[in-house]
């Protein structure tokens, strides 16, 4: 019953100086809105970066002969039995076999070192965005007459001063150590959005690559695209159980591209710094309001103390007051952030307007859309509420332990 009275007093004190309370609530609301929107955009950016890395080339999981990832030489190859490896694993959306090797690409005008990728055109369509990235010309076909077609990255196409339909000669080393060379017709030009790929990749049919290098039915890697990113861990585990771990490596995207994981970790660290700064700003603003409020009510606290209110009850009353400010701030923040999120869901944020090199990480569509995670919202709201309430402990203790006689005379 007593507690109810102190809660009532606290609530009425919030309403007593409406303008000051509004200011505190506004700061808390803006703080929470900033947290929710920035976290959602960060998450959207991370998801897009992962999705982009996976979809352009890498896939969720890659299977190679052991050591290929660290040292991708032509002698590291394997002959997979896909039926044995993937039978019954329903999380796999698409798979594609590849032969990957370094070569020298020459045209009549110029030559350049490239990375040649032998692909299964039909399967690669499902496993990566390669078909969709064809900027001009045609995608690779499967007919006999199309077996000497190739696709080249946009920058490579320009660097070698090529023209559509022109011949491109690839020179490399076959598995037996002999010189391997073949000529291909440039069927199409690709723009994946990743400058590294667009600058140095040439795609040719898998059978042509196997023939050129003397691979037989061997491949360098199998790329798997899964239904969901969350499926990676258990799918990788299942496949690992079916291979000879001494000979074959099964790597997930985090192991293949640790730089992306590190970039995201760095981003999360920045996110936490931002959260801390906002929490401090909100806390200081609320503390300032509470300090002013207590300064004005010295006599009131003195009278309350004189008639028998315990110091602990005064502390609780002040904490309730700042808790109410925090709750109102959280409510305001949820409303404001909802409006902000709707805007960003509809329009996105075009990161290209901030940095031209952003396509390397998120692909050609540089617009990032927020991803709202309930856990993030709860944590952000908790941070705002806790920081606004706990920071008031200092003014609350000051109010509770003031000298009663001096407080009564403080008019």
């Amino acid at each position: 019953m007593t507690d109810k009275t102190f809660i009532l007093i606290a609530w009425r004190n919030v309403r007593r100086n409406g303008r000051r309370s509004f200011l505190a609530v506004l700061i808390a609301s803006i703080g929470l809105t900033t947290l929710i929107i920035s976290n959602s955009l960060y998450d959207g950016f991370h998801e897009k970066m992962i999705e982009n890395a996976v979809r352009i080339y890498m896939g969720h999981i890659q299977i190679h002969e052991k050591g290929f990832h660290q040292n991708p030489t032509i002698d590291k190859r394997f002959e997979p039995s896909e039926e044995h490896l993937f039978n019954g694993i329903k999380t796999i959306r698409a798979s594609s076999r590849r032969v990957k090797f370094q070569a020298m690409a020459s045209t009549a005008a110029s030559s350049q070192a490239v990375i040649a990728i032998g692909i299964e055109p039909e399967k690669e369509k499902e496993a990566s965005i390669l078909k969709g990235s064809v900027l001009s010309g045609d995608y690779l076909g499967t007919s006999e007459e199309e077996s000497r077609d190739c696709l080249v990255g946009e920058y490579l196409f320009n660097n070698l001063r090529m023209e559509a339909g022109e011949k491109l000669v690839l020179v490399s080393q076959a598995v037996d150590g002999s010189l391997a060379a073949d000529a291909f017709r440039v069927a199409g030009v690709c723009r994946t959005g990743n400058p590294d790929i667009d600058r140095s990749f040439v795609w040719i049919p898998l059978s042509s690559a196997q023939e050129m290098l003397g691979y037989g039915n061997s491949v360098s890697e199998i790329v798997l695209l899964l239904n969901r990113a969350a499926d990676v861990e258990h799918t990788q585990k299942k496949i690992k159980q079916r291979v000879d771990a001494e000979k074959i490596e099964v790597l997930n995207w985090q192991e293949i591209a640790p730089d992306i994981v590190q970039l995201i970790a760095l981003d999360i660290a920045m996110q936490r710094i931002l959260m801390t700064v906002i929490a401090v700003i909100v806390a200081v603003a609320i503390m300032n309001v509470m300090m002013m409020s207590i300064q004005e009510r010295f006599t009131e606290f003195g009278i309350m103390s004189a008639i028998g209110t315990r110091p602990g009850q005064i502390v609780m009353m002040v904490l309730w007051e700042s808790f109410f400010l925090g709750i109102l701030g959280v409510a305001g923040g949820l409303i404001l952030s909802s409006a902000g999120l709707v805007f960003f869901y509809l329009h996105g944020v075009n990161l290209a307007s901030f940095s031209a090199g952003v396509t390397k990480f998120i692909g050609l569509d540089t617009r990032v859309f927020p991803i709202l995670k309930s856990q993030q919202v709860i944590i952000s709201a908790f941070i705002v509420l806790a920081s606004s309430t706990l920071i008031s402990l200092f003014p609350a203790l000051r109010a509770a332990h003031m000298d009663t006689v001096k407080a009564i005379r403080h008019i």
Partner: protein
Amino acid sequence: MENTVIRLKEVVKIYDGEYKVAAVNGISMSVERGSFSCIAGPSGSGKTSLLNLMGGLDKPTSGDVFIEDKNIAKFSRTKLSDFRLKKLGFVFQELNLIPVLTIRENIEFPLLLQGWDETRKKKAVNDIIEELGLEKLSERRPLSISGGQQQRAAVARAIVSNPAVILADEPTANLDSGNARSLIGLMNRLNREKGITFVLSSHDEMVLKEAGSIIYLRDGKIIQGA
């Protein structure tokens, strides 16, 4: 002794500042239960300091303060707080009431702190409101009523839990003569009819005329009375 509600023994209160000031300088006195006493004296004579010591709002530098034979000079802050709640009622010069509570809620406040049950509390508050003629003001907030009405409400809050003694520090200081007379009349009536003990500090002649006993102070010492 049994009829003594407040007893001070060689009480000294020295304020340490740039200069040491003995606001209360070796006072021994007692207040009888059911009395209407007034502490008088010029400004700076120590009236408020003495009242604060009697009310446990301040601690003496030396000496003992007994309220109903309990030496409150030795009490901890929390124990003093509880003691004040149960045994003492206060009326100050002004701003006595909690501004965000209605007059009824202000009067109820000490009973809530004491944990009275709803029925008993409601009856006690209604009785006091009726007795002091505060019915029309009971749902209003303190800042919407006059200073005289606020002081009446403060008296109601002070007496609602039947404390041993009511201490009033210059309760009429900020009232016009009409309201001052009315307030002192009310306290006097409550003293006569209900036997409530009042100790007031004042230098108002009108208040002194109504007092049953007067203690005159000068420079922290009793020069007459007690």
